[in-house]
């Protein structure tokens, strides 16, 4: 029975399945529109953000780790000192997200009933910066120091012997906080996954207050009043960042092959990698000729796709589906929102194109080290 569950989890946790599942399920958990909201309510998914939901979630996570601890294969990954922060991260993320969503839902209910948000009714929840806030933060700081000291005493730092260029570990993993980036490198060239995307993430987050001019929901928890923004952010944060870290930590084994959590990390495992560029799809597979010698002609379609995606698509959207939104926020904000939003969306799109069509690059110009 337990073995069957493990096998199912192994199958489900394949990135194709789990990523798709998360992507599909996500709008039902953080419903961005009324339609999703309806289903969210109908199937009781909203209960996740209630107290029973909290216990259920905590139980599910704990159950997974406990079963994993007693599984000979998962045990190895789970008990590595390097992976301890990931376990903490999963718990802390669930707890903090649940806590904010729980309060947001309470407030949403109040707002619906014409009441003010909880925060307005409860002066006890206000603090003075001096001395209250500073004092509390100071106590928190001390307690956190205690936690770090005890952690460092109990779990020895996973320091290893001097690196040896002749004997690199397999798999070679980045520090846990970079595993999301390392996962992106599977799908993108280093200059995109390692430079452009991280820069966009940082600049994009700095730009959020300038792009999101929704005045509602300031100073109190609320989901309904800014559900689209929260949906987009949470998808980027949870699925496109944290989930990739979890994959990188627990599911990537020797040769960067994918392994389910309960699977043995067999270094002999071979996965065929026959990835094909878009230009090869067009010229070789569809038109049945060789690749044109001229690089620009060869990669012309790729450039067209890129221009269509980043240039034409926003204009079409502004004219049709997002017409009201475009008028509301103006062309400058719209441009930046599209730039960051479409870049973010490019990650799952590329992942799916890889999984579905073995697509390697949309534009492939290794001659110039320019691949997208």
């Amino acid at each position: 029975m337990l073995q069957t569950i493990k096998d199912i989890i192994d199958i489900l946790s394949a990135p194709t399945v789990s990523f798709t599942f998360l992507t599909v399920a996500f709008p039902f958990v953080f419903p961005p529109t009324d339609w999703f909201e309806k289903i969210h309510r109908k199937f009781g998914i909203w209960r996740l953000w209630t107290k029973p939901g909290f216990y259920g979630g905590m139980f599910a996570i704990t159950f997974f780790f406990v079963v994993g601890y007693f599984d000979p294969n998962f045990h190895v990954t789970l008990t590595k000192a390097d992976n301890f922060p990931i376990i903490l991260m999963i718990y802390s993320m669930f707890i903090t997200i649940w806590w904010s969503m729980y309060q947001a839902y309470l407030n949403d209910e109040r707002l619906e009933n014409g009441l003010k948000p909880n925060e307005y009714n409860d002066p006890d929840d206000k603090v003075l910066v001096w001395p209250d806030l500073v004092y509390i933060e100071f106590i928190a700081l001390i307690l956190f120091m205690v936690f770090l000291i005890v952690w460092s005493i109990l779990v020895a730092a996973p320091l290893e012997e001097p690196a040896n260029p002749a004997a690199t570990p397999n798999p070679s993993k980045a520090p846990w906080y970079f595993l999301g980036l390392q996962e992106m490198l599977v799908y993108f060239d280093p200059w995109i996954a390692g430079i452009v995307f991280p820069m966009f993430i940082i600049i994009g987050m700095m730009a959020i207050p300038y792009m999101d001019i929704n005045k509602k929901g300031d100073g109190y928890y609320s989901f309904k009043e800014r559900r689209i923004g929260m949906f987009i952010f949470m998808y980027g944060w949870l699925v496109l960042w944290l989930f990739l870290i979890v994959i990188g930590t627990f599911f990537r084994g020797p040769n960067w092959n994918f392994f389910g959590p309960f699977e043995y990390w067999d270094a002999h495992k071979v996965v065929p990698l026959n990835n094909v560029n878009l230009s090869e799809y067009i010229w070789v597979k569809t038109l049945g000729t060789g690749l044109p010698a001229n690089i620009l002609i060869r990669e012309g379609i790729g450039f067209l796709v890129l221009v269509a995606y980043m240039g034409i698509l926003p204009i079409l959207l502004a004219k049709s589906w997002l017409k009201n939104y475009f008028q509301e926020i103006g062309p400058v904000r719209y441009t930046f929102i599209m730039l960051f939003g479409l870049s973010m969306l490019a990650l799952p799109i590329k992942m799916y194109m890889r999984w579905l069509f073995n697509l390697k690059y949309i534009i492939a110009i290794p001659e110039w080290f320019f691949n997208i």
Partner: protein
Amino acid sequence: MFKNDERYWNIHQLNKWFAISSILFMASFVWMFFDDNDDEYKVYQRNFRQLEIQMAEAELAEELEAVKIERVSYEEKAQDAQNILDSKTHLADSLESRLVTLKGIFYKHNMDYQGQKSQIDALKYLVEKDNTHGVTHGDDHSVENRQTFENANILLHDYKLKKEATETDIDETELLIKEMNRAVKASTEDLNQVLADVQLVQNKLEKIDRKHMSFMNKVGDLVRDLPILDFMNPYYKVKQIVVPDIKYNVNFTQVPSVDRCTSCHLGITNPDFVDAAQPYRTHPNLDTFLSSASPHPMSDFGCTGCHSGRARGTSFVSAVHMPNSEEEKVRWEKEYDWEQMHHWLQPMLPTNYTEASCFKCHQKEAYINDADQLTLGLSLIEKSGCNGCHLIQRYQERRKAGPDLAKVSEKLDKNWTAKWIKAPRSFRHNTRMPHFFGQDNNSSPEMTKRNDTEIIAMVEYLFPDGKEVSTKNDHLFMGDAVNGEDLFNALGCRGCHIVEPDEKMISEDISIESILKDHGPNLIGLGSKGSAEWVYNWIKNPSEYWPGTRMPDLRLSDQEAKDITAYLRSFTNPDFEAMENIELDKNQLDKIAFGWLSKMNTEAFAKSSLANMSHDEKIDYVADKSFRYYGCFGCHNIPGYEDAKPIGTELTFEGSKPVDKLDFGYIHDIEHVNHAWFKRKLENPRIFDYGKESPAEDKLRMPNFGFSDIEVEALVTAILSFSEKEVSTKMLADQYVSDELVYEGRKLIKEFNCQGCHIIDDFGGQIVDVIGPPDLSPPNLNTQGRKTQPSWLFKFFNSPTTIRPNLQVRMPSFNMTDDQWNSIIRSFQYSDNQLLAYETDHSVSIDAKYKAGEKLASADFGACNNCHFYGATFPIQGAQAWAPNLAMAKDRLRADWIVDWLNDPMVIMPGTKMPAPFLPTPDLFEDDYAADIYGKHLIALDGDTTAMLEGIRDFIWDMKGQKDISGIVKNYFNENGYKFGEEESDDDEDEWDDEDEW
């Protein structure tokens, strides 16, 4: 300040939380300190200190017990002296107080004197300035200055006298005091002398045991090890040895090794801890290692230079200890929470394999002392021909391990050869020829067919002319097998060969000694192999068939050769004969040829090439591919493959190969460490193909040598010794040997198995087990380097003559070059520290010494002629006691050596029957008839032993007569036979009688 109502939070509540968190923080901080300071090595050091205290206390008790009685009288004496002194208290006190006063006075006078001296220095300057500069301007004070200077000098003199007078007073008083205390001091010194050993232990205890410390020392002992303060001079500290000549490779740079092992292995150089528990136990071989008098002192070699491991590790796990066995591993995991630090590239060598490290510095030695397992492994590499296929730069192939196959068609027939190639051990159970076929990865019916076809193709190549060996003339070459057996046992064949048809009789206990006797093949089944004609010709003159063979020529007569041939041909192997002949499969032939063709060419080309090949061409092609695939030329000379490249992995640095570069395949029940891999590979070379789907051309092909467990362990040690760890040149053992030829000579001695017959450097001579009495076996070559003249030895090697006429065993004629003989001679000379090639001739004058020697050698005394030939003059005693011809001594021996030899033959050649000559002592000359008995010359020497021995030497040296008595001896034995063995019991009695005479 803020009023409380301005806050939304309850400050008291926060204060409480602040208090709680602060206490927690403090607690965690203290915990951190404890955790940080409680290193594993400190625990060991504390325990060791207790152990040392216990031992010191026991020692103290012992020492006290030892002086218990003796000390009483000394203590009494000391007490008496003290009592006398005490009775003179009054006088002593007055002297003491006088001394104090005098010292006070001296202090004053001395100060006056020193003060005045500095005044004078200043005045002196003024006067000197006046002397040289004269007066430039202003008033002239020179006269005045000089006057002051002189007055000051007078005053100084006055002070000086006063000071000196007081000094004398002080000295006198001190002398009086000393005189008074003399008796007490002397008796106390005597007592201390008696208690010296006790004091030594007490001092030690005061240093290590707090119970014996003064209060302040107790405090100091506690404080020195407190956290932070322990940066100064703690008791518990990391102990390290920096070894600049042994380098540790940290990628891109080499740093000196820093060994911290002694932080826990605290008793390693102290012989008192032989029985202590680890980690305190003494090193098991202090004579060779660690002690300052040994060749490997700890300060120069450290620990990890030999043991490897993580030198800077200060805990059991971080030093990367490695277990010897699975049981040890389990025990370590329980006791020490052991786990392997798997990224450390040089884990400690399990103690089974520590000898592997010797090779780093001892690369050229034929035998590495105290490293028998490594020597065995290296020997096996040569014997099995490992370095024929695997390049080992520091241990290169010196000769092909297997026989020359250039003329194999004269020796063998095709069917026999094919069956042999397929399964050599089914013919000769302990052959070194390995099994390529019928292994784990090629024993399927399909592979067997393929392999059979390959074998036939290779055999066809080796027998190009199609001529077959015939046995129809066998009777012409076979004599008396019984006599043949006697000759085989007596002439020295067994120095290198055994004849043992029974597999079970071969000892599993293989060692560097045991391999001496199977230097050559086990000579069984020769009746089922080749022809008598070939055997006859081979033993008559081995180098005719194979010019490079190590098999020497025993100068057999035709009849001897025939008898031995008959004996060897009497061993047959019916099972092998009954085995089915191996057949070639044409389909397989095509398939193999096509497989190789298409590996390098397009399939179309392969097809057309194959279609154009005749059957013979296909056979040639497949034979060529097979030779190259199996690497036969690694061990055999095969015409056409003289320059073929060896096929195996290079093993030059195999011992340092990272474990992830070794392919464990699908074998999981094995430790992921290199030695486990090597071991498994040697036990079953194809094991790592298990479960793999490889095409026939890509399968593992290392053959199975059928190594025993001991051999495998030895080989693993040798492979581990091929390490890339660097040591500086001055560490290399060959830096201390002046001549390259010495190593070459020792290698040749090993290669030609001289130690199969002779004891050389206290090793070898196993043939004595077959022959029996040591005096009828080949001689012990101890002191050979200073025994014989190099020029004689060289001549003897090239053309051996009879030296010991009582030996039936023969010194063979080896087919060696002048270079090789020179190397061997040089290695003998080096061992005896006699490196001269040319020496002044020893000249003999017929003087009293000579005459005395003549007398001592005469029948009255030494009776040398009893056993020794005097030229062509036969010895008086029977053939069994015969000894070398003394007329040969002048050409053969070195004059100095003869004296040493005569002085005590047993020292030079243990077990020799040569007695030390009788030398009269001067008291014997007092006898009335002394002059008649001893002669005036001997009496004149007056018992000077050296002179008498030199006299005998000179007598021998001057002996004239026939030098080479080979012919005479041979004729004698031809006429009288050589039958000592049968009369052994009688001879023993005779020997006793002989000795009684002495």
